[in-house]
C-alpha cells in the first residue's frame, strides 16, 4: 500500500444508473447498507421493547390478565395471563433482541458502515460485496430469531446467556425447535459481524484520504476500529460455541451436558470470553460518537485526544481478561476469582479517564444544547452510574450478594440504555441529515429527550434497591417470596414508569418517519462540524467524492484562534498548511 488505495475506485457520483434492486436492496453502497441496518435494527428495538412491556406487566401485576393479552395464543397467555414458560421466553428474547439485533447493529452495523468511509475520506468500503453479505446474513439471523417466537413449543428459554445444560437439553428446558433456532440465528449473527469487522479494519487501515493520519482520525472512527478488532476476535468464539450447542441439541454430542461427560462451565467460559468483549462492542462506538458530538456541541477540541485513544485501546485490551467476573459464584476456582476481580476493577480506570476527559471538553466551552448534544451529555451522566455500579459487582464479596439480582439488571441497563441507547439518540439525529438530507424535528426531539431521561431513571434506578433487597432476576412472580412482597409497590411503580418510557419512544419513531419527508432541509453542514462527511451534499451521493479530499488537521479544531469562525474543517487549507505527501496517508 504505497499510494492511496481509495483513488483506485471509480466514483460515478454523477451518473448513477444502477437498477432499483441494486441500489436499495442488494446494494453494495456503504451508506445504503448502513441505512438498511438502521431500519431493520430499529424494528428489532421495537420488538425488544414490546417483549419488555409484557415482562413488566407480569412483574408489576402478577397473574392479572394483560390488557391486549387476549390476542396471544393459549400456549403463551391463556386469557391474557402470562404463563411462566412464556415469561422465560420473554426474558430470553428481550435480551437477545436488544443485544444482538438492536444495540449492536445500531452501533456497528449502522455507524461503522455509514461513517467510516465518509469520515476517513474514501468512496466505499474495501470489500463492498462482503459488506452486503454482512447485512443479509444479519437479516436472515433476525428472521430466524423472530420466527422462533411462533414455533409450537415457543422460543428459547434459557436467558440471553443461554447457560447449559438448560439450553443444551430439550427435556430440561421444555423448548425444542426454538432453542435450535436461537443457535442457528446466533451463528449467522456471528458471521455477519465477522464479515463486517474484516471490512471496517481493512478500510480504515488502507483507504484513508491523503493527510488522514492515525492521530487525525475522529474518535468515532478510532472506537469503531477497535470495536471491529474486538468483533473479529470475539464473534468466532460465540459462533463456535453456538455450533457446539447446536450439536448438543440436534446430533447428540454432549459438550455441555455433565450427565454424559460434558462440562457445564465450559459454556460459561466460552460465552463470557465472547460476552465481555461484546459488552465493549456495545459501548465503545457509543463512546466514540459521543466524543465527536460533545466536542462539536461544546465548540472545543476534545480534551486529551491521545489519552482518549489510549483509553479505548486499554479498555479493549483489558476487556479480554475480565470475563470471569460473570462467574464469581459459578464454582470456578476462587483464586481465579481474585485475579478477575483485580482486572475488572482496573478497567474502571480508563472508563474514568474518558468520563473526566468528556467533562474537560465541556469545561469553558460554549455549549449548544441541540438534541444530539443533550443526549450525549445524558450519556455521560448515565454511563457513570453504570460504571460505578460495576465496581460493586467487581468486588467479589459484594457480588456474592448481588449477583443474579436486580442490581445486575440495573447495572446493565445503565450502561446499555443509559449509555449505548442515549448515544444512539444522539447519533441518529446528528447524522440523519447526511443520510436523508433533512433534519429531525428539534422541538419533538427535546420533548422525547426529557421524557425519556425522566422515565428511564424512574424505571431503572429503583432496581438497585430491589437488588439490594435480594430480588432475584429472571423470576416470573416475585410475590412467591415473602421477603419480596413488601417490594411489590416498587415493582408496580417501575412497571408503570416503563409503560410511560415505552410510550415516549413513539415520539421518537414518529419524528424519525415524519422527518424523512417533511424535515427541514439540512444543507451541507448543519452542525458546523469539521468532519469530512460535512463537505458532501446531504444526502451524500453514491461514491461519496469524485476526488477524495485532502486532510490538513484533526477533526476537533473548534474555536481555533487561527480563524474567526468557531470551527475549522479538516479539509480547509490555510496558508500555513503543507500538502501531505500522498504516501503518508497509507503509512501513518
Amino acid at each position: 500500500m504505497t499510494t492511496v488505495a481509495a483513488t483506485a475506485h471509480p466514483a460515478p457520483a454523477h451518473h448513477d444508473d444502477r437498477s432499483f434492486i441494486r441500489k436499495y436492496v442488494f446494494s453494495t453502497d456503504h451508506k445504503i447498507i448502513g441505512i438498511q441496518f438502521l431500519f431493520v435494527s430499529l424494528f428489532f428495538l421495537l420488538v425488544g421493547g414490546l417483549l419488555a412491556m409484557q415482562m413488566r406487566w407480569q412483574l408489576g401485576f402478577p397473574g392479572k390478565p394483560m390488557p391486549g393479552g387476549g390476542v396471544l395464543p393459549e400456549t403463551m397467555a391463556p386469557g391474557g395471563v402470562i404463563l411462566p414458560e412464556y415469561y422465560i421466553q420473554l426474558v430470553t428474547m428481550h435480551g437477545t433482541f436488544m443485544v444482538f439485533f438492536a444495540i449492536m447493529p445500531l452501533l456497528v452495523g449502522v455507524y461503522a458502515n455509514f461513517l467510516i468511509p465518509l469520515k476517513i475520506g474514501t468512496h466505499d468500503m474495501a470489500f463492498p460485496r462482503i459488506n452486503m453479505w454482512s447485512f443479509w446474513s444479519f437479516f436472515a439471523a433476525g428472521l430466524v430469531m423472530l420466527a422462533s417466537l411462533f414455533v409450537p413449543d415457543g422460543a428459547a428459554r434459557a436467558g440471553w446467556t443461554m447457560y447449559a445444560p438448560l439450553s443444551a437439553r430439550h427435556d430440561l428446558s421444555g423448548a425444542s425447535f426454538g432453542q435450535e433456532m436461537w443457535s442457528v440465528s446466533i451463528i449467522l449473527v456471528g458471521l455477519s459481524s465477522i464479515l463486517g469487522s474484516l471490512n471496517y479494519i481493512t478500510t480504515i487501515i488502507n483507504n484513508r484520504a491523503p493527510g488522514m493520519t492515525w492521530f487525525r482520525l475522529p474518535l468515532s472512527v478510532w472506537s469503531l476500529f477497535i470495536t471491529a478488532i474486538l468483533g473479529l476476535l470475539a464473534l468466532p468464539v460465540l459462533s463456535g460455541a453456538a455450533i457446539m450447542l447446536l450439536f448438543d441439541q440436534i446430533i447428540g454430542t454432549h459438550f455441555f451436558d455433565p450427565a454424559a461427560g460434558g462440562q457445564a462451565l465450559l459454556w460459561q467460559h466460552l460465552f463470557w470470553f465472547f460476552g465481555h468483549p461484546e459488552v465493549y462492542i456495545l459501548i465503545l462506538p457509543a463512546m466514540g460518537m459521543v466524543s465527536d458530538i460533545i466536542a462539536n456541541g461544546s465548540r472545543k477540541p476534545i480534551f486529551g485526544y491521545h489519552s482518549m485513544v489510549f483509553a479505548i485501546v486499554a479498555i479493549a485490551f483489558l476487556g479480554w481478561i475480565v470475563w470471569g467476573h460473570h462467574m464469581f459464584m459459578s464454582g470456578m476456582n476462587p483464586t481465579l476469582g481474585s485475579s478477575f476481580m483485580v482486572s475488572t476493577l482496573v478497567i474502571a480506570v480508563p472508563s474514568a479517564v474518558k468520563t473526566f476527559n468528556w467533562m474537560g471538553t465541556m469545561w469553558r466551552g460554549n455549549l449548544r444544547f441541540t438534541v444530539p448534544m443533550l443526549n450525549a451529555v445524558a450519556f455521560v451522566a448515565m454511563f457513570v452510574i453504570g460504571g460505578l455500579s460495576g465496581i460493586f459487582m467487581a468486588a467479589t464479596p459484594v457480588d456474592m450478594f448481588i449477583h443474579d439480582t436486580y442490581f445486575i439488571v440495573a447495572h446493565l441497563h445503565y450502561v446499555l440504555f443509559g449509555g449505548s441507547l442515549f448515544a444512539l439518540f444522539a447519533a441518529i439525529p446528528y447524522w440523519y441529515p447526511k443520510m436523508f438530507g433533512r433534519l429531525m424535528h428539534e422541538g419533538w426531539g427535546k420533548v422525547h429527550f426529557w421524557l425519556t431521561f425522566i422515565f428511564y431513571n424512574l424505571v431503572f434506578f429503583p432496581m438497585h434497591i430491589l437488588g439490594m433487597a435480594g430480588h432475584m432476576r429472571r423470576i416470573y412472580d416475585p410475590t412467591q417470596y415473602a421477603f419480596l412482597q413488601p417490594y411489590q409497590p416498587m415493582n408496580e411503580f417501575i412497571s408503570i414508569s416503563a409503560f410511560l418510557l415505552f410510550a415516549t419512544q413513539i415520539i421518537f419513531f414518529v419524528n424519525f418517519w415524519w422527518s424523512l419527508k417533511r424535515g427541514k432541509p439540512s444543507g451541507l453542514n448543519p452542525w458546523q462540524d469539521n468532519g469530512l462527511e460535512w463537505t458532501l451534499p446531504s444526502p451524500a451521493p453514491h461514491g461519496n467524492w469524485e476526488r477524495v479530499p485532502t486532510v490538513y488537521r484533526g477533526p476537533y479544531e473548534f474555536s481555533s484562534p487561527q480563524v474567526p469562525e468557531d470551527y475549522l474543517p479538516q479539509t480547509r487549507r490555510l496558508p500555513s498548511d503543507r500538502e501531505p505527501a500522498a504516501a503518508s496517508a497509507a503509512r501513518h
Partner: protein
Amino acid sequence: MHWWLPLKGSTFAGEVDGLFLAITIITGIAFVLVEVGLIWFVVKYRQRPGRKAFYTHGSTRAEVIWTAIPAVTMVALGLISNHYWVRIKGRNSVPPNAYPIAIHAKQFEWQVTYPGPDGKLGTSDDFTVRNQLHVPVGRPIVVRLTSEDVIHSFFVPVFRVKQDAVPGMDINAWFQATVPGTYELGCAELCGLGHYRMRAQVFVQSQEDYDAWTKQAAQEASS
C-alpha cells in the same frame, strides 16, 4: 420495605455490608463529583452570543491526576475485597469443625440431607427433607451443593450467601448463622419454567431446638 440491605443474619453479613458501604461512599464521591460537575458546566458554559470557547487540547497534569487517583483507589479496593473473599470463599476457608449439610438441587426443589445424630454425611442415619433448611445458630455450617439437572443457585439473602449448584460438580459453601428466625432460600440462577417457585424455608434455631427437630424429622423420614 428497606431502602438499604436486609437483616444481617450471618457472620459474613457484617463484612459484606461494610464493603458495600465503603464502595457506596467511594462511588458516591465520584458520582457527586461527576454529576454536579456536569450540571455546573451545563449551566455555566451554555452558549452565549459573542463568546468563543477556550481553545485547549488538554492538560497532562490534570489527566495524570485523574488517572492516578482512580487507579490507586481501585487497586486498594481490590486488595481489601480480596482479603474478605479469601476468608469467605477461598479454597481453604471452610472451618474444619463446620457442620455438614448436603443440598441436592433439582428442577424445582431443594433436597436437604442432614447428617443425623452422628454428625457425619454419608452414613446410614442421614435423612432428607424437601425445601426445608434447618441450621443451628452460631455454628459454622458447610453446605455440599450438587445438582441433578441444570445449574441452580443457592441464595439466602439474609446470610449474604450465594453459590451455584452445578451438575457434575461438588461445591462447598459455608456460613455461620447469627440470628434465630425463619428466612427464605431462593434459586438465583434461571433453571427453567419453575425457577420462580424454587424456594425453601430456612430455620435458624438454637442448638437444642435444632437437635429436637432433627430427632423428630429423622423419625418422620424413616417411617
